[in-house]
């Protein structure tokens, strides 16, 4: 009898603790976490046929998780290398599938832009290196939810019958104007005509979408089969392809970097920079290229690793050849 009573008391107490624990482990919060991850040689992501591509140029990614649970938030906030923050606007209004799709779109755009930039730069050194490509349009990476007639991944091929031939003019026309737009959209290989009324506070984000017809030497993209997504390795892909194309094979120290590559050769902003620096530092890497726009955020970490701010891809090439390797 006494034993049964003890068992009942234990059950009462444990069941409440159990329920609290399960709530903490299961119920999601409106927070996301960014954590350091490992670096990866860029020659495993993009490879140029017949060229000796250095394994020393590396990109570094971060691990992210959205809508973490209460328990996870408590756990991650105890680690100073993790960043726990409220969900970003895009994450909070898009479905998990759309957010995943964005990562793939950004990765594809990053590969295309890296190839075009690197081949074009290398062509200036060696005329036999060529790339033939066409601009298809602007691929939608994000749009405010009220414009749901447009989907993430739609490609806008023309606006108001203007027959745009370059990304910048097309993008600026769309961003700087408001009112009704007649959009030619490519969705699942089908052409659609969609009219939207764009207001001043609407948020749109695009990447250029190219069709690469031919490249010499040829390339392959093993990185498309990996789980890594996002645009932040664009600069390092470009550098890896460029140095392989011009047969620059004297890079003998590990150099890691992060930053998107833009259509105008600028290095664009990225997220999770602090976590990326911790990730590289844990592996004993000494040199880290960062977008110049982010330098102020991380210059206090320069005691951990040599940080080089770069604003353009030409500057990144200069830093590697003249500063790091000298």
């Amino acid at each position, binding site marked *: 009898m006494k034993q049964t009573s003890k068992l009942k008391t234990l059950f009462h107490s444990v069941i409440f603790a*159990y329920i609290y*624990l*399960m709530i903490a*482990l*299961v119920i999601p919060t409106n927070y996301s*976490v960014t*954590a*350091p*991850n*490992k670096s990866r040689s860029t020659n495993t992501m993009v490879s140029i046929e017949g060229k000796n591509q250095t394994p020393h140029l590396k990109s570094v990614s971060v*691990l992210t*998780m959205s809508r*973490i*649970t209460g*328990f*996870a938030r408590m*756990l*991650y906030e105890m*680690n100073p290398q*993790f960043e726990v923050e409220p969900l970003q606007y895009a994450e909070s209004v898009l479905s998990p599938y759309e957010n995943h799709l964005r990562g793939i779109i950004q990765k594809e755009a990053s590969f295309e832009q890296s190839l075009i930039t690197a081949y074009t730069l290398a062509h200036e050194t060696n005329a036999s290196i060529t790339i033939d490509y066409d601009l298809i349009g602007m691929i939608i990476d994000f749009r405010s939810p009220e414009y749901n007639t447009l989907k993430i991944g739609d490609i806008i091929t023309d606006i108001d019958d203007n027959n745009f031939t370059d990304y910048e003019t097309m993008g600026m026309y769309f961003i700087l104007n408001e009112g009704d737009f007649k959009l030619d959209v490519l969705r699942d290989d089908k052409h659609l005509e969609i009219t939207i009324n764009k207001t001043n506070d609407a948020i749109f984000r695009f990447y250029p979408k190219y069709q690469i017809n031919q490249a010499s030497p040829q390339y392959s993209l093993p990185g498309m*089969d*990996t*789980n*890594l997504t996002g645009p932040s390795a664009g600069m390092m892909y470009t550098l890896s392809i460029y140095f392989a194309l011009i047969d620059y094979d004297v890079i003998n120290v590990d150099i890691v970097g992060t930053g998107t590559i833009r259509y105008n050769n600028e290095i664009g902003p990225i997220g999770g920079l602090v976590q990326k620096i911790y*990730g590289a530092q*844990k592996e004993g890497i000494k040199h880290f290229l960062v977008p110049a726009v982010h330098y102020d955020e991380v210059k206090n970490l320069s005691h951990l690793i040599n940080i080089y701010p770069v604003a353009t891809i030409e500057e990144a090439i200069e830093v590697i050849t003249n500063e790091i390797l000298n």
Partner: protein
Amino acid sequence: MKYLTKLWNQSKVVRYRLDDLTTIKSTFLSVLGSLIITTLLLLPVYLILVQLFMFVELQLLLIILLFILSVIAVFIYEYLMYYIHGLFEPKIKLLNTKSLVIVEGSIMSALLVVVGIIFVLIFLQGA
């Protein structure tokens, strides 16, 4: 080897006798009960381990722990299933279900480990 053969033969006999003693209803209820209790017992541990995957340096250890936990889960499920069966049909308590738990648990956990290894290899290839 001799012990394994003995265990296998013993489990076959116990299984044969169990079939006579159990009904579809008692089997269904004991499987369901066992599944629920195993899940309630181990789910918090699984959830904690999964959330620790954000720590890159712990990932290998966590994968091993998940494998161990899966094997433990199989044996807990098997044990509880025959225990609950015994509550429905007291004659089952007289049978040596331990041999059955060992044999069935080993086969199921071996299968789980093989499937788990395939998943881990696919995951690591894409990482």
